[in-house]
């Protein structure tokens, strides 16, 4: 399906010294430095898999996706998507893949989605009957019937995103690349969209290659996660395992009534402390949130409290630090 072997990409980056003199200097005598964006990437994805492709900003995610979709030529290594070499056979490949970029819209803003779908039919040269059938099914599935003829600019973000996904699926791609598909959406809508994508995967075997900073997207949609940092794969395992190993941490920000007594508890780590404000990390495998909270409340007055999932960055840093091994 997707086969990547020792793929790498280096960029020649112009070096600019800071300040005014630097700007002038770089104009006349540019100095280039080689930056390795992606180094020796290897992985395989089978038909029907739903894979999350994770990593902090600048880790090489979009570079990799661009190489897989044929937008960017690698510096070396091999890759095949559906049997095609993406950057050489981009046109043929494009008939069989779909892309949804959360930040960049493919829809025509001032027109109803139905018009964008029409265009897609022409772009992908879909047979009329086929197209209409497919369209009908997707519209029903994603429940956008009522907004089919409303200009996109008048739709809510959630409605718009559903239309984007339909537009990307009309030509029956075998893989879809989703980049931040639920960004900016509220929780209810997010869950709905994930559900719809999962159904499609179940029924049609569409593979999903997902990039997202939303842990919920990852947990809900994908069975497997590939984590990349500094251009290298640092983790490639089932999401369930990753969760067990790394997503078990919770971060609590708490503001106490007075300076706390020493807080010590197994599984509790103080990340930051500033007078009465504390940032705590709980290892839920060792201590439940409930236990920690009870302990906190028993010995202190709690003025303010928030409980968060660790950010994707933090998860990555845990992984990178080798924090927590299975078992």
């Amino acid at each position, binding site marked *: 399906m997707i086969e990547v072997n020792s793929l790498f990409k280096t960029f020649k980056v112009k*070096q*600019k010294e800071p300040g005014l003199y630097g700007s002038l200097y770089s104009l006349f005598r540019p100095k280039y430095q080689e930056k390795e964006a992606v180094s020796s990437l290897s992985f395989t994805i089978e038909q029907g898999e739903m894979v999350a492709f994770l990593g902090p900003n600048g880790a090489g995610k979009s570079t990799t996706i661009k190489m897989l979709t044929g937008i*960017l030529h690698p510096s070396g290594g091999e890759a095949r998507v559906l049997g095609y070499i993406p950057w050489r056979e981009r046109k043929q490949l494009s008939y069989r893949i779909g892309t949804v*970029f959360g930040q960049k819209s493919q829809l025509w803003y001032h027109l109803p989605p139905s018009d964008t779908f029409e*265009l897609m039919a022409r772009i992908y040269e879909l047979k009329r009957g086929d197209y209409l059938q497919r369209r009908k099914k997707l519209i029903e599935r994603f429940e956008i019937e009522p907004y089919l003829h409303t200009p996109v600019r008048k739709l809510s973000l959630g409605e718009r995103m559903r239309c984007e996904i339909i537009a990307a699926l009309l030509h029956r791609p075998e893989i879809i690349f989703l980049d931040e598909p639920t960004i900016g959406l509220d929780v209810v809508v997010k869950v709905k969209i994930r559900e719809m994508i999962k159904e499609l995967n179940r029924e049609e075997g569409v593979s999903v290659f997902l990039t997202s900073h939303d842990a919920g997207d990852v947990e809900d949609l994908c069975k497997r996660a590939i984590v990349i940092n500094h251009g290298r794969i640092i983790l490639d395992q089932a999401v369930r395992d990753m969760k067990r190993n790394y997503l078990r941490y919770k971060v609590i920000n708490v503001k106490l009534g007075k300076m706390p007594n020493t807080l010590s508890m197994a599984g509790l780590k103080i990340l930051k402390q500033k007078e009465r404000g504390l940032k705590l990390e709980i290892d839920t495998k060792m201590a439940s949130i409930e236990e920690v909270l009870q302990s906190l409340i028993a010995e202190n007055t709690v003025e303010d409290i928030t409980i968060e999932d660790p950010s994707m960055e933090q998860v990555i840093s845990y992984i990178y630090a080798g924090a927590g091994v299975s078992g």
Partner: protein
Amino acid sequence: MSTVAKTIRFITGYWRVNWQGAMEFRASFWTQMITMLINNGVWIAFWGIFFNRFPVVKGWEFTDVLLLWGITAGAFGWLHILFGNVGRVAYLIANGQIDSYLTMPKNILLHMLISRMSFSAWGDVLFAWLLFFIAIPFRIDHLLIYIMAQMLGGVLMGAVILAGQSLAFWIGNSEGLSFQIANAMITFTTYPIDIFQGFTRLLLFTLLPAGFISIMPIALFRGLHLSFLVMLISVTILFAASSVFIFYRGLRRYESGNMITLKM
């Protein structure tokens, strides 16, 4: 369905959708059209005042300038109606919007160009045809020459504009410069060629081929000079081919990914 037929369906699909977009924003469409008419009209007023004082300048009369403006506006007009993104290619490249086009199976350049229609350009087209009926007596041969002049002029303009826009593949922040190149081209086409001599005149028939358009009233309407016509067609084809070549060269550079400049 043959490839040609599919491509035509693809293009007409876009044109139809673009037109629907205009109808969706009807008020804006009409406003922009009318303001363009006024915009162009002011220049005709200027030339009217000018030729009132100087009835003939280097063989040029008011009628000739009317024709010139008609041709230029008409050329600009159809170019921006059918290929409305021609002046925005630099912006699309700089903002990475070209990526969406790259992941779709159609010809990149064509796809980019046809996915937008300028509203104000309809004002230019209307203006061009108003001028045609005002400036010269109606004759079939005049009509045919007028259409041909606009077609060739539009292609030539488009070639220069596209080449300027393609600079974005090599220079960051090129939008200002690219715009001025297009601007220079269009500005020069609206002035009679014969006010320029020497080096400028040479420039206008080589690097910035506006001269081929701004000479049309004399070279096509005061008797059709076939030698000029042949030269015009050759130059148009040459510039169009070069411009497309430049674009694809730039695209190759884009795909190799060396367009990135980072501050260290």
